[in-house]
């Protein structure tokens, strides 16, 4: 066949196979012409090519040689396109004089395009042939997978594993020794099953990774399982048959159980690094995951599964935390701390909501003139009674066991003349009659900066009740808050044309209760005897509100209202409950109960109507006087904090 002229062939048709080299012309041969199609030599004057049968007489388009690369052909095609366009323009310009040349170039372009198509096809076939050949070459180099070869490599692996196993045992690294042997055996089995013993060797990564974990002191059953799972996945990914399946499983798994995985991995990471990193990291990841679930286009069934799985998981985490890991294990503690952080976060959101509500309420009351504000003195100093680190020694107890809850009572920077007496109680939430005993003592007398550890013991958990229960710690204490309002007094006749003073703001001493005071527009006008309304003084508005976010006002035991010299307290909220024409009014007992009601709803504003008995005394021989209204209130305040316990077993 080599060198034989083709029997069939159409003009311009590119050869299917690489063209055979045309015969070499003898040196003394008569003048010849070369076929533009196959480059074969032809006697001069031949009309048809003796090699490929192409027409030699006319302007024959030179077919693209089969040996030309795709890039060359593309370049050529581009060039021809330009030429055809140019030639067409010329033909138009010369009124058809160059039409023949244009037609020839167009035919040449067509041939080039076809050649390009063929070349592309050839290239892709060659690529696949090359891959196949490489594969065969690789097989040829190792030889066919004979039973001998199939078992020779595993046997080698086995021998190496055995030697390593024995050595590691000898140097007392038993755990890794076991893993070496297990991995070796599994790699042999995988190699034989899939008839690719080399891939089985990947399993030997297991002892390496476990060795690394061991070096980092991180070998735990969970970590070992994770390593084995990881390597198994790696092996499965190397097989074409399983790759797609593993990919799908991984994709769906991550989509459906991503939230669970993030939560577990976060807890696991915290256990491993031994540091409780900010919970906001996990929270952010979880939010990102849920956004992904919500916005990714996925089959409804998978989306639904993802939502159900996550809801179920977090329901379990929040209701039965002990189900996730053995109690007091590092993993349990880690998960529990994340859970607690979320609970705190939710409480924080709740408190924020309360604050917003309180702000709006304050604005409303201020707008209707039923709220007086005040500024806390030395508010930058921490002040208060706090129940910190509330916890429980055992989250899950049997009915016959005892419950031991604990916490720290902290008192910060109280500035009172008398020490503060704090009473601590603990009881089952919403069942105050089921009380635990407080140790070491339930009553503390605290001055400044004191901290005391307290324990609450229920000798028998059955008394508390079976199931999840909340043990509330309660610290109540008596406290006094005072408030002062500076006021400017001036005769009415002087005020008229003098510039008005800015209304001063009341100052109240720190504590759980806020006292706001207001005495109307300043300066306060003192009327002359001849003027109508003489004798009536300013109305003092007193607002009581919570100054701390936590806790509640339990009871008001004493209220002392003091007005400047020359003024008297006439009535409180229209009730004549103060001694007649007195500068000080002290309210206690029933009078207070009637004034505040039960339970006390805050904010509470009362209005004290005053009278002016002696304007000269107010002014004390000056054109203007600065005097203060004073209010002191003694009350009982209570703060609570709870801890959860799960009582198991059957109650008697």
């Amino acid at each position, binding site marked *: 066949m080599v060198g034989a002229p083709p029997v069939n062939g159409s003009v311009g048709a590119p050869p299917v196979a690489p063209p055979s080299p045309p015969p070499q012309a003898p040196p003394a041969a008569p003048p010849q012409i070369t076929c533009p199609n196959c480059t074969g030599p032809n006697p001069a004057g031949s009309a048809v090519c003796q090699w490929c049968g192409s027409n030699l007489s006319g302007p024959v388009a030179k077919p693209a040689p089969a040996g030309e690369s795709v890039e060359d052909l593309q370049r050529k095609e581009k060039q021809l396109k330009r030429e055809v366009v140019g030639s067409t323009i010329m033909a138009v310009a010369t009124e058809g004089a160059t039409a023949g040349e244009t037609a020839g170039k167009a035919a040449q372009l067509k041939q080039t395009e076809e050649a390009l198509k063929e070349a592309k096809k050839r290239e892709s076939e060659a690529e696949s042939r090359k891959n196949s050949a490489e594969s065969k070459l690789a097989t040829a180099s190792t030889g066919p997978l004979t039973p001998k070869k199939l078992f020779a490599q595993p046997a080698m692996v086995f021998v190496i594993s055995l030697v390593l196993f024995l050595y590691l045992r000898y140097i007392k690294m038993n755990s890794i020794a076991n893993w070496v042997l297990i991995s070796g055996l599994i790699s042999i089995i995988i190699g034989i099953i899939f008839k690719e013993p080399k891939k089985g060797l990947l399993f030997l990564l297991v002892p390496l990774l476990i060795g690394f974990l061991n070096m980092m002191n991180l070998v735990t059953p969970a970590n070992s399982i994770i390593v084995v799972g990881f390597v198994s996945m790696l092996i499965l990914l190397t097989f074409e048959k399983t790759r797609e399946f593993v990919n799908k499983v991984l994709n769906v798994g991550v989509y459906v159980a991503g939230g669970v995985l993030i939560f577990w991995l976060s807890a696991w990471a915290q256990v491993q690094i031994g540091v409780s990193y900010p919970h906001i990291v996990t929270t952010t990841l979880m939010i990102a995951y849920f956004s992904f679930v919500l916005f990714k286009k996925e089959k409804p069934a998978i989306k639904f599964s993802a939502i159900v799985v996550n809801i179920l998981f977090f329901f379990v985490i929040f209701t039965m935390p002990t189900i996730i890991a053995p109690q007091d294990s590092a993993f349990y503690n880690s998960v529990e701390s994340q859970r607690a952080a979320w609970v705190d976060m939710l409480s924080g959101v709740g408190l924020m909501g309360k604050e917003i509500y309180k702000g709006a309420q304050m604005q409303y009351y201020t707008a209707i003139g039923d709220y007086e504000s005040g500024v806390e*003195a*030395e508010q930058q100093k921490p002040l208060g009674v706090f129940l910190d680190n509330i916890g429980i020694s055992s989250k899950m107890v049997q009915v016959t066991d005892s419950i031991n809850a604990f916490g720290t009572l902290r008192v910060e920077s109280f*500035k*009172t*003349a008398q020490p503060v007496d704090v009473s601590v109680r603990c009881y089952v939430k919403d069942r105050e009659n089921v009380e635990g005993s407080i140790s070491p003592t339930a009553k503390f007398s605290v001055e400044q900066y004191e901290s005391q550890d307290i324990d609450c013991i229920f000798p028998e958990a059955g008394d508390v009740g079976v199931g999840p229960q909340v043990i509330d710690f309660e610290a109540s204490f008596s406290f*006094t*808050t*005072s408030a*002062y309002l*500076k006021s400017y007094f001036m*005769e009415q*006749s*002087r005020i*008229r*044309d*003098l*510039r008005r003073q800015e209304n001063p703001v009341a*100052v109240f*001493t720190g504590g759980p209760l806020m006292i706001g005071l207001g005495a109307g527009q300043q300066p306060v006008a003192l009327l*002359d005897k001849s003027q109508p309304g003489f004798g009536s003084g300013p109305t003092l508005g007193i607002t009581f509100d919570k100054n701390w976010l936590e806790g509640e006002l339990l009871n008001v035991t004493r209220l002392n209202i003091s007005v400047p010299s020359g003024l008297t307290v006439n009535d409180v909220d229209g009730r004549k409950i103060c001694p007649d024409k007195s500068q000080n009014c002290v309210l206690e007992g029933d009078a207070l109960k009637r004034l505040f009601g039960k339970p006390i709803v805050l904010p509470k504003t009362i209005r004290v109507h005053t009278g002016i008995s002696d304007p*000269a005394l107010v*002014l*004390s*021989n*000056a*054109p*203007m*006087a*600065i*005097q*203060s209204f*004073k209010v*002191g209130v003694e009350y009982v305040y209570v703060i609570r904090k709870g801890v959860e316990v799960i009582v198991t077993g059957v109650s008697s």
Partner: protein
Amino acid sequence: MRKVLFLLLFLVACQMVPSQLPFGKQQVKALPNILSGTSALQASFNKNSMSNIYMCQQANVFVDLKNAGASNISGAAYIFISEEQYLKPLDKKSGVFSLEGKSLYNPNGGIAQLSFKLENKGLPPQLESYSSPLIFQACYKYQTVANAQICIDPDISNLKRGKVCSVQPVSLSGGQGAPVAVVRVEPLMVPEKDKVKPMLAVYVKNLGDGAVISQENAELACSGKKVTLSSTVALRAEMFGVELDCPDSVRLEPQGETRIICSSTALSSSADTFSTVLLVQLDYGYVTTAVLPVSINAIAEQKPC
């Protein structure tokens, strides 16, 4: 050509002689403008005053006084006001002082310093610190003298030509060396039978930091005596030596300008247009106030005073 250059140089040299050579004319400094500014008494607590004291401690305070206006202050009353429950005065809290105003001989005005002692009498219960103001108040008589060049034109029909001036409002900015200032004068030519009556709208405003009170009660305002205060100003105006017909006293608007109308004797409508000086004199009382917040702090474990 050389001659021309020489001549030019000579001329230039001659030009420089009077002003730049030692034997030339000396420049005379302009006289300070006494009748400008909007201040009267300037009172401020001296920076050496004790504004931070410990509980039960004595505080010495000093008030710097300066008469930055053009009128003299004589027999001015002052008083220190404090929250006596916590800051009890140790000195007499009221008194009298006088201060010379700005003049050509004393262009800065008179200065003086007052001292005052107080003592803290304890803090309210549960408080570690407390702030209470100490107020200094001075009440005195003051005077504003303003003059404005105005145009009087009885020819309201505008029949004459070549008038020396034209009737238009005159603005007086920057004050007249007193807190109450004449800010604007608007001449108005009002026909009255065959004559024309020049009327002047004088706009007055309190441009100072203090409060205006009537002149009669000026000193009483700083005492505890019963007195009715109002921001009234006594007014007197004259033009070409003749006193104008003005209200005796005017109550100033709390905000903005107060308009006062003064009228002159009627002029013949054939009289010539002329320019003249309007002189306005305002007499009133003024209250200047300075406040020093005194902070009282308790030392840890300090016992009551």
